[in-house]
């Protein structure tokens, strides 16, 4: 199976952890998980692309995605005003969103503008499992896309050149 959202849901269903069975609680986790995979992830990704990776600086595109990231941070901040986590308890929705907030500075965002989001961010960051997970990934955090060769691989895919079966 593929896609981070798939892996989170599948493993949560398999283990019975971080995705409740109660239909109301479960749908709340899934709403925010899909919000992340369809919104925060792709839009912050476009932010990174135009702010950091694109070969030319295009103000309209940079502004569009920096501002959309800001809007999405605002949605998170309002959601977290009266709760500790995105759903009823810590869930795969928090696990999906947190890594996309980690690079907030590169996204042109200031967490002091969104105090509830900042509080949540620090709480998730401080969890022992978060520390362990990011430590596990540290040897591989080489930021490969900043090399020209890396850019060719990441950004040169077209319908014509992707491999088919």
């Amino acid at each position, binding site marked *: 199976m593929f*896609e981070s959202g798939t892996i989170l849901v599948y493993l949560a269903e398999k283990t019975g952890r971080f995705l409740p069975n109660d*239909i109301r609680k479960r749908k709340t986790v899934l709403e925010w998980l*899909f919000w992340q995979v369809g919104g925060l*992830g792709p839009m912050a990704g476009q932010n990174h692309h135009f702010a950091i990776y694109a070969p030319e600086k295009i103000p309209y595109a940079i502004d569009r995605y920096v501002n959309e990231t800001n809007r999405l941070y605002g949605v998170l901040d309002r*959601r977290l005003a009266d709760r500790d986590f995105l759903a009823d308890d810590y869930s795969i929705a928090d696990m999906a969103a947190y890594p996309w907030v980690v690079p907030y500075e590169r996204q042109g965002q200031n967490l002091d503008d969104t105090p509830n989001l900042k509080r949540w961010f620090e709480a998730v960051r401080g969890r022992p499992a978060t520390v362990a997970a990011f430590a596990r990934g540290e040897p591989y955090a080489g930021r490969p896309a900043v090399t020209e060769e890396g850019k060719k691989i990441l950004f040169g895919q077209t319908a014509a050149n992707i491999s088919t079966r």
Partner: protein
Amino acid sequence: MIRFYFHTGPNPMKVALFLEETGLPYEVIPVDTLKGEQHKPQFLAINPNAKTPAIIDTDGLGEGPVTVFDSNAILLYLADKSGKLLGRPADRGQLLSWLMFVATGLGPYSGQSVHFRRAAPEPIPYAQNRYLREAERHYKVLDAHLEARNHIVGEDYTIVDIAAWGWIDRADFVLGDGRLGEFPNIARWFATIEARPAVARARAVGKDIAFKREIDDEARRNLFPQNYLVA
């Protein structure tokens, strides 16, 4: 009863098709996004992300109504609850994978392609090329997957076919007129879906609603609020 917050976009149309396929009773509540109705407090209480579709399931299994936002979350919620159009349990990993493919890729990149080709105030060749190529790449991935298959997941029609249908229906708009023919497996699959009686009923949903259609300054401010932030 499903209260269905609706506008005529690909994402609400996915939910319209699911409702017509399954016969769940529903009522349409228009949200005129070009007029900014998605930004009103009553709607934000249902979807804080200010997008359509959203639903209120008045039959929340005993404890009062359940609101759900995000088209793919709605499909999964209604399918899990009704047991319909979910495919086989053994195919759960594939169901989720391809549903996420639509949610994170086919949808968002088709949307960005349309934005830079048709809605952005200035033509930006780099962005137009980036998103057209990325939308095409998603079509190519799906087309390869549909070789020798009638449905996206397993042997049966599922919510993933419904989710993909919502976006593939806009192929002319996203890629250019007539370009669906460049992806013959998708074209064949799409024709099979189109023949389903529920599709005609889904297409009729909201036809009688007089939504604002002109993309004028008011519409742009409501659709792209991030372009109008006060410095």
